[in-house]
C-alpha cells in the first residue's frame, strides 16, 4: 500500500474510533459535541506516558482510556439534567474547556504542541479499531443494549421498568470518553506531534458527522461514515476548489434520501444475508 493510502486509512481508523465514541453516547439518546475534548485528554495522557514515562504504547492507551472514562463519568452527571440541544451545547463547552486548558498547560507544550512520540503502524491502529468494533457489535447483541435503547426511547418508561437510567447514561458517557481517548492516543502516535488545535470543535463535529452520515442506528455505520468522510474529499480532488462544496452537496443529498444514514439494520441484514448465500 502506498504511504498516501496508508495515511488515509490511518485517518479513517482514528476517525472511526472517534465516531464510535459518539455512537455509544448517542445510543442512550445523548448527543455529545465535546468528544474531541476526550480525544485530546487521551492524546496528551498517552503521549505523556510514552514520552516522559517510557511506558509501552498499549499500556499508555489503556491508562489514557481509563483516565478519560473517569472524566467522562464526571461530565456525565451534570449532563443528566440536560437534554437535546442544551446537552449538545454543554458538551461543546466541555470540549472547548479542554482545548483552552491544553493551550495554557505549559508542562505539555501549551500552544507550541507536544512531540517525541514514536510513529505507530496502520495495522496497530486498526487492531484497536477492530477490537473496539467487535466489542460494540457484541454490546449491540447484549441485554445492556436493550437497556440503552429503552433509555433512549423514553427515560421515564425505562425508569418505570426498574432501569437505573442514571447508571446507563453516565456509563455510556464513560465508555464513549474512553473510546475517544484511544482515538486521541492513536492520533498522537500516528502524527507524532499534537497541539491543542487538533482537538477543537471541528473534530467533534467530524465524529458526529461520521455517525449521522454512515448510519446512527448501527455501529457498522460509523465505519462507512468515517471512510466516506476521509475518502470523499480525496476522490473529489479533480473538482479543485469546488471539492468541499461538492462534498457538502453530497452530504445533504444523502441525508435527504436516508435520514437514518447510509447503513441501517435492514440494509445490514440484507448485506450479510447475501454474503451468507454466496
Amino acid at each position, binding site marked *: 500500500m502506498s504511504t498516501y493510502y496508508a495515511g488515509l486509512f490511518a485517518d479513517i481508523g482514528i476517525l472511526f474510533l472517534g465516531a464510535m465514541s459518539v455512537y455509544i453516547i448517542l445510543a442512550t439518546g445523548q448527543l455529545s459535541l465535546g468528544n474531541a475534548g476526550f480525544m485530546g485528554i487521551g492524546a496528551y495522557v498517552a503521549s505523556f506516558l510514552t514520552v516522559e514515562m517510557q511506558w509501552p504504547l498499549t499500556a499508555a492507551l489503556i491508562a489514557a482510556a481509563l483516565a478519560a472514562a473517569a472524566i467522562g463519568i464526571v461530565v456525565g452527571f451534570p449532563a443528566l439534567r440536560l437534554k437535546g440541544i442544551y446537552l449538545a451545547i454543554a458538551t461543546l463547552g466541555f470540549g472547548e474547556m479542554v482545548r483552552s486548558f491544553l493551550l495554557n498547560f505549559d508542562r505539555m507544550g501549551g500552544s507550541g504542541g507536544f512531540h517525541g512520540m514514536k510513529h505507530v503502524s496502520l495495522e496497530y491502529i486498526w487492531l484497536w479499531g477492530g477490537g473496539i468494533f467487535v466489542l460494540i457489535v457484541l454490546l449491540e447483541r447484549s441485554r445492556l443494549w*436493550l*437497556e440503552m*435503547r*429503552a433509555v*433512549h*426511547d*423514553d427515560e*421515564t*418508561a*425505562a*425508569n*418505570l*421498568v*426498574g*432501569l*437505573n*437510567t442514571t447508571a446507563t447514561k453516565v456509563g455510556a458517557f464513560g465508555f464513549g470518553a474512553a473510546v475517544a481517548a484511544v482515538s486521541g492516543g492513536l492520533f498522537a502516535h500516528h502524527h507524532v506531534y499534537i497541539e491543542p488545535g487538533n482537538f477543537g470543535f471541528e473534530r467533534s463535529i467530524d465524529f458526529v458527522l461520521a455517525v449521522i452520515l454512515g448510519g446512527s442506528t448501527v455501529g457498522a455505520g460509523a465505519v462507512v461514515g468515517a471512510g466516506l468522510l476521509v475518502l470523499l474529499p480525496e476522490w473529489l480532488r479533480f473538482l479543485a476548489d469546488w471539492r468541499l462544496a461538492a462534498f457538502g452537496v453530497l452530504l445533504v443529498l444523502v441525508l435527504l434520501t436516508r435520514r437514518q444514514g447510509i447503513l441501517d439494520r435492514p440494509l445490514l441484514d440484507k448485506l450479510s444475508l447475501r454474503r451468507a448465500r454466496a
Partner: protein
Amino acid sequence: MLKVRGLEVFYGPIRAVRGIDLDVESGEIIALVGGNGAGKTTTVRAIAGLTPYKGTITYDGKPLTPNTAELNLRAGLALVPEGRGILGRMTVEENLSMGTYCRKDHAEAARDIERMFERFPILKERRHSLANLLSGGEQQMLAIARALLSRPRLLLLDEPSLGLAPKTTTAVFELISSLRRDGLTVLLVEQKARQTLKIADRAYLLETGRVVMSGRAADLANDSLMSQAFLGGATSPEIGSP
C-alpha cells in the same frame, strides 16, 4: 399497604399537591378522581418515585425514598403512566421483555411473557411490530401487561382510558376488575368518574391539590357535590351507566 401522609409536591414555586393523606389497603381498588390540575397525576408520580416530594409515603410499613422509581418497582409497586409510557421504537416483545427487567427468575419470567400473550392475544399477533404502530387500546394493554410482568402487588394506573374509544375503555375497566380478582391492589387515577366509581371500593376526590372528599365509592357516586362537580348534573339512580 400504602400510607401517604402530608404529601406535598412542588413544581418550582407552584404547590401542585398541598398535603394529601391517602390509604390503600391490600386487595382494594382505590380511585383518585378529580378535574384537570387537581394533582392526581402528580400524586401517583410521587408514589411511584418519579418526582421529589415532602411528606411521607410508607409501603408495607417501610418509608419510601423520593425519586427512586427503580427501587419502588423492586418493592412491588408498578406505575402505568399517563400516556402509557411504552417504548415506541422497540417491538412488543422487547417491551414485555423489559417488563421483566428487574426479575431474577429468568425462566419463570419468560413463561410469564408467554402467559401475557395468552391473556392478550392481540399482543401475541403483533409481537414483532414496533410498539409505536399499535392502536391506542393495544398500547394500553401492552403498558399494563408490561407493568404486570414485574409482578407488582400494587399497580398504579394513571388515566388508562385516556384517548380510547368507549368500547376499548370498557375493556380496560373490565381488565382492571379482573386484576383485582387475581389479588392485585390497584390505585386508579381517572377522569371518567362514573365508570371508575363503579369498579372502585373507595375513592378520593381531589381538587387543586387537596383531598376534598373521600369514602366508599358508591357513596361518592351518590353525593350531590361530587355529582355536580364531576358527573354532570343531579344525582341519578343509574349513576353507573357509562
